[in-house]
């Protein structure tokens, strides 16, 4: 794999990155992500974390050879393989996993969260491995590199899939500094600060600061480094979401004086790093509803948001040259 690629490209041309995050298992959204390279004519695809889906739909076979399932509050009775195929296609658009099982098998899972989590990991790892293979297939013969990493919602077990298959165009950039072009590198951190959802890869602000310091220590010129940090900077407008009460499951909005309370759910460690190192750009995700742009000194920081559930790929094209962002464009495809 050409780590310092872009052969034949004039040195004055900016390097164009396409960034997206939080696609949570959605098949069409990931396929769009791969096609974004050609569609937007970019040099690299950068993913910002949260690859795994959140729901698993059991398709329970009965004695008559039909299937029962529940989706979005509605019961579904699928009586033919064609109906099953259409249903599962819809599930994959929504980013959900599915598993056919008989009633006895379903009974073993029901109420057994450990067993359910195990099944999630198996299916998510399988899907991620398929995605890596698909990326290699789609990007074969191009100079485009696809950088993948996990987010707070992804388990370490599932992220092993990033190393499961031989890779040429795909780079596992998780917790690494990788070259982007002749003059820029990218540092990636997939952790988030603690959330009300108690997700698999949460770290305290202090722990995230240590991870960032360890990574950036080896970067020769931080001003020519892209920070691909899943969690946005604290109180930056890229991290605004509803405050939730974690004592309920699922967490419920905190209401004060009859109104929901908003707060910044980002990381102070990221704010500090952006202010201190003044990198080329900060790319962030995690808070789906907080699409926007802001600035830390000379450094612009972005969160393109996410609408994976509608099959929409929200993203950002960033053109970088000489350690500066020379142009950017939010996308919604």
């Amino acid at each position, binding site marked *: 794999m050409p780590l310092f690629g872009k052969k034949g490209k004039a040195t004055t041309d900016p390097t164009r990155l396409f960034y997206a995050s939080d696609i949570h298992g959605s098949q069409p959204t990931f396929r769009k992500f791969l096609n974004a390279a050609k569609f937007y004519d970019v040099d690299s695809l950068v993913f910002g974390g949260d690859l795994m889906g*959140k729901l698993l739909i059991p398709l329970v076979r009965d004695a008559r050879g039909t299937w029962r399932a529940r989706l979005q509050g509605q019961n579904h009775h699928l009586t033919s393989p064609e109906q099953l195929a259409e249903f599962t296609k819809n599930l994959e658009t929504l980013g959900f996993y599915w598993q056919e099982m008989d009633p006895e098998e379903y009974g073993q899972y029901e109420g057994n969260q450990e067993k359910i989590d195990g099944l999630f990991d198996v299916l998510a790892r399988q899907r991620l491995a398929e995605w890596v293979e698909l990326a290699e297939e789609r990007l074969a013969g191009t100079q485009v590199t696809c950088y993948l990493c996990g987010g707070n919602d992804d388990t370490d077990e599932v992220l092993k899939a990033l190393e499961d298959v031989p890779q040429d165009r795909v780079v596992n950039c998780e917790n690494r500094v990788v070259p982007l072009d002749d003059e820029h590198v990218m540092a990636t951190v997939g952790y988030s600060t603690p959330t009300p959802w108690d997700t698999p890869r949460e770290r305290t602000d202090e722990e995230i600061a240590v991870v960032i310091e360890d990574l950036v220590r080896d970067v020769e010129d931080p001003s020519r480094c892209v920070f691909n940090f899943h969690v946005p900077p604290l109180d930056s407008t890229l991290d605004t979401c509803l405050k939730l009460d974690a004592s309920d499951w699922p967490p419920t909005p905190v209401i004060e004086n009859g109104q929901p309370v908003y707060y910044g759910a980002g990381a102070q460690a990221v704010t500090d790093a952006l202010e201190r190192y003044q990198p080329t750009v900060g790319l962030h995700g995690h808070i789906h509803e907080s699409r*926007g*742009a802001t600035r830390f000194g000379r450094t612009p920081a972005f969160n393109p948001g996410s609408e994976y559930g509608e099959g929409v790929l929200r993203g950002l094209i960033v053109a970088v040259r000489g350690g500066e962002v020379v142009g950017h464009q939010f996308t919604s495809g």
Partner: protein
Amino acid sequence: MAEAAAPQVFTRRASGLVRVMSPYSAFIYNILTMGVIFPWTYIWAPAAFQGSNLTLGILFAFLFELPIALAYAWLATALPRSGGDYVFQSRVFGGGFGFTVVFAFFVVWILQWVALSGWLLAALGIAPTFLGLGATTGSQFFTDIGTWAASANGIIIISVANALIALVLLVTGFRNYVRFQYVMWYAILISFAVVLVLFLTTDPGSAQGKLDVFAGKVDGVSNFYATARAAALDAGVSFNPPFWLWGTLLVAPIAWTSLQWATYSVEQGGEIKNAHVFRNQLFIIVGSLAATAGMLILLSLAMQKGIGEEGILVASSGYYLGNGSALIGGGYMFPNLIAMGLTASPLIVAIIGVGFILNSFQIVCNCYIGTTRIMVAQGLDGLLPEWFSRVHPKWKTPVNAHLAYFLGALPVIWGFNKVGEWTRWTLGVTFANGAVMVLSALAAALLPYRAAKVYEASPGARYKLGNLPMVTVFGILGFVLGGFMVVSFFFVPELGLAYSSDALPWYIVAGTAAVGLIVYWIMRTTKAQKGIKVEYAFAEIPPE
């Protein structure tokens, strides 16, 4: 035989997305935006289309708007994002078209509504309230305030204060507005109910006497009603016209200037809780439309009971035919002013007045809320400078967009109240706003074909009429029926642009569209020089 229970969904611990504005809040927002309390229909239509049936005209407007509202429900669930109309149209028609139409015909033209809401606050809220209080208490101080509020300088000062207070309320946190909206909602409902009761508990004969007394106290005139009626007759009012079906149909576009705003909540679709749920959008958009249409019809029937067709025509002649004898305290005889004339109680006057003042204030708030969301969406898409899309880190609101809109409104407020020709120049406002909604209905019709993946993933995709998507059916119906109303603004002199003797208002409409196109071209060119194509903001990537 009962079916076996379906298996439950398996979940794991993963983060989720929650939105803020409840569907009920959005429902209220739409009703308040439609401005039930000061619809133009009652003072515009009766004299403009003599022989029309006001109640039936409002019903037609409801029926014409219904497919548009349904089409919007599909759009709002398929694309539940802030910036609504801009998002829909840019997605379906492309960025250049979507930006130009929504920027020119909404963002620019709604500046006129900021000025108008200030005028409503002054002329329909503060002036009649204080004139009414002056008349019922005998206080000259109240009367002087009312008279000042109706003067040009008074209206300008009140309008600027109105826009400034709304700016401060909205930029310091959207939650402040949502909280205050409930105060406005209940005050307006009470005010509206009081107006209804006053009309329903009187009859035309006694109403005329009460209006004589009221106008006598306010303006020092005698025999107000008889004088106003005679002047209306001279101005061309026929007090016993035969029923006119075509005229009744043409009442619909006027009533539509209120009812068309049933869809306005889509501009903040990204902030509405469960905005992608079909029944929520039906409740918010179609529900608010039905509720408001019902209220307007009720008010129409109550006015007929209280002051009769004749009284409605006299009131309307003051606005449409310029009958100066049919003004009270210099103000048009809107339903609230008439209702104040029907009571001798300062408390009732105050209750009505507070409702009108708050609804006027709400109008300027929704001007900001809708247009700033559009500007933020356009800023994020790179079609306006990024400055517009910036959100304040503490208040979490788009402060810059609000500030820009306030500054943009100042010259419009001045022109609206100081430039005699302003109203004629801006006759295109009804056309421009209506055109956005009709084009969004067309966008809905084309959604399954122009943004297939978005449509297929939406909850409305399962509803079909034969092989035709229901959204296409409603979109086409809405486009045709809404198109009738928009075209009537173009060609019917009583309704808008054709009222002018020259083409200047048409050029102004075309000029705003040209401004939109120029802004688009500048932003597109600037971005292209940096290696970025703004078209990428709207293009749907094929997954395969």
